[in-house]
């Protein structure tokens, strides 16, 4: 019954029908009765003191219900937006967290920071009134630069050197000793470019307060509605948790940017309570550019020590990470525990030391964006490994193979705090090289040269740590929340099943994948399983979707809940079949008394559970509903090899990706079609980072220069090619599905493959992302000057 739809089957998605027929229900599609519209007044300056705000004209404008400022919010008891992960500096001191009010109070610190909100009967009226706010600003010096931020005057008066923390990981003495004994040392300066997430659905919020029940319902574009409710209740103080319902309906992509708790949903929720009317805000794209948390933005110096045979002896990394003007919800964890811990990569480097200085600048806050820390780690590692191979005159694939963790060495403890449970890195490399016809590359390069094109090939062997992850470990590392997941299975009296998950799907296809798991376990048709997510009034709790955690953690919770349902069903069946639970087998949707023909179907047991006429009520409660929480023992460790082949037009610097090969190990795969889709999208975002996407601020004024899709180049269909994918499978050893997670791999693994290919093609040592035609052309003009290193 379930072979075509169960675990491992390439099932088309259940959720698609509503999306392809225009029946999806996104936040902006929802309207409250008598709703008002919020428009935010945003700072035109990168840094300024607010001398005064004259709101009189705005308040008197047609249709205006309220004009509110940061002071109004503070007076109303609205707390600041917290950062939920405590990082300690190397001297043991806690990170310095500046207050982050939902609306600025006294000072604005980045262009686009909201400092007031106008709430009016129509969006047009609110916008017109917002233009009437007369702000008297005293412009202050602004800094947008990561590398020099520590020497700039403090952006927050009480935070010297703009330094949030100075964090380290690894054994510095051992690493220094490794360098002292090295035959070769390779050094590389690396910039990881700031990115703007640009989920195609702009963020939106609708606060809808019911004075009758005192319940505030907040519809919002969140990747983690339960976490939003927890933070908005416990820290921001919007409403008690039991009086706050957060609904994330269909959400149009997130990529990290919709994890965080922002000003706008806070204000809409609070204003709805205050005004007793629904209050709605939908970002336009320009606001998204200015205000959605950005990603990456690292400046790094890395050094790799090798012995005479090319074995890695030590890696030393010094990074400055830009946090922006304030700390977003998880920003502190990204350049630390999601970055430094990944620096072993796939290799047996015995000594690693990393230091990270996180700095404040007059820019939009920076937080997790697809991959979050792991792309930054992978980029520097795979760039420096490739560079080492070139410096040593070794084949880059051979150098990598020589240093890979052997397949018999698992579980493998790295010098940067992780224990890899399983993997087969050599198999991924071998398969990728074969698919990419690595050996045939020299001939292709020659053929390209004859056509006047420069062809290059680049590798990237990535690892990631995902399935976020064990609460105990996260707690030790400073997390303010647990990192488990929940699942509830309600078997309905008629035998179909409603599944509630604390994860959230905004493109990942959980409604299908999770249903496949349940359908497979219970032996019931896929269409008998409904997966519900995104509503705190329905699912009990959950941590949401990010860090490729949904299946590895949420799917595992689902397996546990399934086990409980089957266990109870078994007890019911035993009673009905007049035997003991130990003698009941459950397979293919049928409970059978072992060694007999006596059976009960899953549906019959469900009905019996709710119609307990013939039922041992003293032993078994009626009903068939189970909840499970799953907290894993470890991260999961997907890994793989990506190979990119490019051709560069030497006259224009234009780069064309001509072939892209990806071999990933995600452990068991529930739905290969969906997994391939995740990899495609991740690779596209990685190629976007490598070739196209440049967040640019004006260094003098702090204005965002790349503030629209006219100036920020998103990957389009004609920038990309079809991707050649395959998998290697080593199952995760510590979760019941053996799954590892696939959401971020593409974005983590692809940027270094692209840059390694371009630098190979044009023969330069360094090339910053994005490698735009201008940058590649400029690098070629500089020619051999750059090739000698700087």
């Amino acid at each position, binding site marked *: 019954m379930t072979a075509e739809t169960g675990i491992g089957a390439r099932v088309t998605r259940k959720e698609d029908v509503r999306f392809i027929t225009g029946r999806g229900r996104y936040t902006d599609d929802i309207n409250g009765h008598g709703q008002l519209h919020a428009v935010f007044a945003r700072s035109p300056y990168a840094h300024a003191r607010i001398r005064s705000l004259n709101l009189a004209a705005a308040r008197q404008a047609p249709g205006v219900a309220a004009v509110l400022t940061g002071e109004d919010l503070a007076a109303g008891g609205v707390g600041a937006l917290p950062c939920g992960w405590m990082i300690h500096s190397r001297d043991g001191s806690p990170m310095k967290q500046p207050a982050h009010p939902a609306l600025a109070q006294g000072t604005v610190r980045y262009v686009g920071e909201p400092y007031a909100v106008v709430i009016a009967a129509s969006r047009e009226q609110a916008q017109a009134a917002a233009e009437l706010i007369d702000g008297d600003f005293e412009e202050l010096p602004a800094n947008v630069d990561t590398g020099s931020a520590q020497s700039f005057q403090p952006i927050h008066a009480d935070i010297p050197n703009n330094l949030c923390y100075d964090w380290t990981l690894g054994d510095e003495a051992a690493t220094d000793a490794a360098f002292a004994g090295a035959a070769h040392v390779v050094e590389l300066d690396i910039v990881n470019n700031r990115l703007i997430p640009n989920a195609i659905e702009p963020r939106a919020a609708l606060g809808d307060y019911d004075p009758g029940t005192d319940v505030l319902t907040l519809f919002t574009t969140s990747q983690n509605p339960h976490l939003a409710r927890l933070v908005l209740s416990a820290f921001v103080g919007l409403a008690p948790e039991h009086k706050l319902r957060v609904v994330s309906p269909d959400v149009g992509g997130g990529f990290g940017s919709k994890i965080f708790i922002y000003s706008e949903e806070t204000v809409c929720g609070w204003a709805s309570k205050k005004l007793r009317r629904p209050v709605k805000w939908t970002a336009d794209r320009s606001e998204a550019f200015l205000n959605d948390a950005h990603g990456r933005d690292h400046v790094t110096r890395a050094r790799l020590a090798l012995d005479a045979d090319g074995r890695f002896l030590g890696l030393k990394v010094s990074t400055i990470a830009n946090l922006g003007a304030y700390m977003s919800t998880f920003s502190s964890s990204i350049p630390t525990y999601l970055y430094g811990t990944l620096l072993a990569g796939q290799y047996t480097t015995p000594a690693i030391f990393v230091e990270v200085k996180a700095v404040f600048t007059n820019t939009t806050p920076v937080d997790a964006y697809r991959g979050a820390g792991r792309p930054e780690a992978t980029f520097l590692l795979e760039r420096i490994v490739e560079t080492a191979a070139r410096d040593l005159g070794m084949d880059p694939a051979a150098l990598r193979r020589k240093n890979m963790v052997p397949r018999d060495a698992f579980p493998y403890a790295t010098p940067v705090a992780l224990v890899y449970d399983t993997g087969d890195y050599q198999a991924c490399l071998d398969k990728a090289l074969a698919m990419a016809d690595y050996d045939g590359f020299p001939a292709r390069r020659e053929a390209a040269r004859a056509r006047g094109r420069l062809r290059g090939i680049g590798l990237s062997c990535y690892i990631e740590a995902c399935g976020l992850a064990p609460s105990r470990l996260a707690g030790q590392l400073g997390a303010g929340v647990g990192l488990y997941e929940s699942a509830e299975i309600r078997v309905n009296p008629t035998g179909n099943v409603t599944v509630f998950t604390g994860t959230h799907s905004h493109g990942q296809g959980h409604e299908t994948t999770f249903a496949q798991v349940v359908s497979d376990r219970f032996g019931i048709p896929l269409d008998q399983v409904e997966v519900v997510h995104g509503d705190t009034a329905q699912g009990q709790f959950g941590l949401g979707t990010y860090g490729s955690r949904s299946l590895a953690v949420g799917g595992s919770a689902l397996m546990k809940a399934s086990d409980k349902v089957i266990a109870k069903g078994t007890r019911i069946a035993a009673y009905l079949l007049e035997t003991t639970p130990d003698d009941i087998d459950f397979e293919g949707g049928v409970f059978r008394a072992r060694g007999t023909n006596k059976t009960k179907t899953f549906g019959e047991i469900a009905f019996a559970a709710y119609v307990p006429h013939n039922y041992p009520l003293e032993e078994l409660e009626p009903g068939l509903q189970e909840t499970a929480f799953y907290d894993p023992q470890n991260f999961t460790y997907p890994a793989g090899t990506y190979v990119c082949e490019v051709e560069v037009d030497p006259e224009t610097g234009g780069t064309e990706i001509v072939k892209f090969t990806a071999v990933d190990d995600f452990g068991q795969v529930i739905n290969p079609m969906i997994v391939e889709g995740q990899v495609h999208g991740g690779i596209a975002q990685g190629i976007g980072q490598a070739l196209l996407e440049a967040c640019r601020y004006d260094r003098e004024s702090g204005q965002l*220069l*790349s503030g629209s899709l*006219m100036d920020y180049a998103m990957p389009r269909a004609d920038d990309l090619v079809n991707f050649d994918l395959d998998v290697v499978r080593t199952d995760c050893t510590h979760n019941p599905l053996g799954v590892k997670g696939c959401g971020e791999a593409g974005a983590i693994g692809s940027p270094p493959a692209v840059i390694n290919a371009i630098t190979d093609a044009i023969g330069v040592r360094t090339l910053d992302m994005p490698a735009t035609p201008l940058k590649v052309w*400029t690098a070629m003009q500089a020619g051999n000057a750059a090739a000698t290193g700087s």
Partner: protein
Amino acid sequence: MYNFTYHRAGSVDAAAAKLAEGDDPKLLAGGMTLLPTMKQRLAMPSDLVDLNEIGELKGITVSGGTVTIGAMTRHAEVAASAEVRQAIPALAKLAGLIGDPSVRNRGTIGGSIANNDPSADYPAAVVGLGATVVTNKREIAGDDFFTGMFETALEDGEIVTAVRFPVPEKAAYCKFPNPASRYAVVGVMVAKTAGGVRVAVTGAGPCVFRQADMEKALSSNFSADALSGITQPADDLNDDIHASAAYRASLVAVGAKRAVAEIA
């Protein structure tokens, strides 16, 4: 978007009359630039006079060595026109490189040239092919039409009605698009016409311009080789986050060479 009074004009004369009445009226052609500008609240005309229903402004005719394109003819129609493809394939190609398919289904040649965005494609065609801009009041030589960044020779109340392109002996257009906006970082139209060789460059400077050195070299030897050694000075070229002036200058030379190579 600020509000305004909307007028749907049925004829050029009616449009001109409406244009004469308003405080600060603007013509609405394809709207592909005007409406986004108004959405950003960067323009607030008192009146919009919609030209989209005026039949006399639409259509393509080819006769006597001239391709005449009505001002409200969409880019998609020019790109797909069998007659244009036959007579001036480079013009059809250029039209097919503007914006994207949905933009080409609305955007018009009249709107494009009247706006004179420095990185728009059509100005390269008008100047490069030696076209004549026809208005409701007069005819303006292509060379005289574009007067500066977003500036044209059009006077208040003047409405472009058509553009007449003399069919060249041969012509080619080479464009290097901005990867974000798809406007031209540099676009070069090279044409061998009855009146001589023309090389028109868009995207590179504040306004479309003719590259005289290249025209001179190609006049005596119409081959890509004739352009070797001729460089475009970077002075006065645009310099932005996408392309430096030096890079644009280099692309002018590359674009011209490639355009010539396509047809030489």
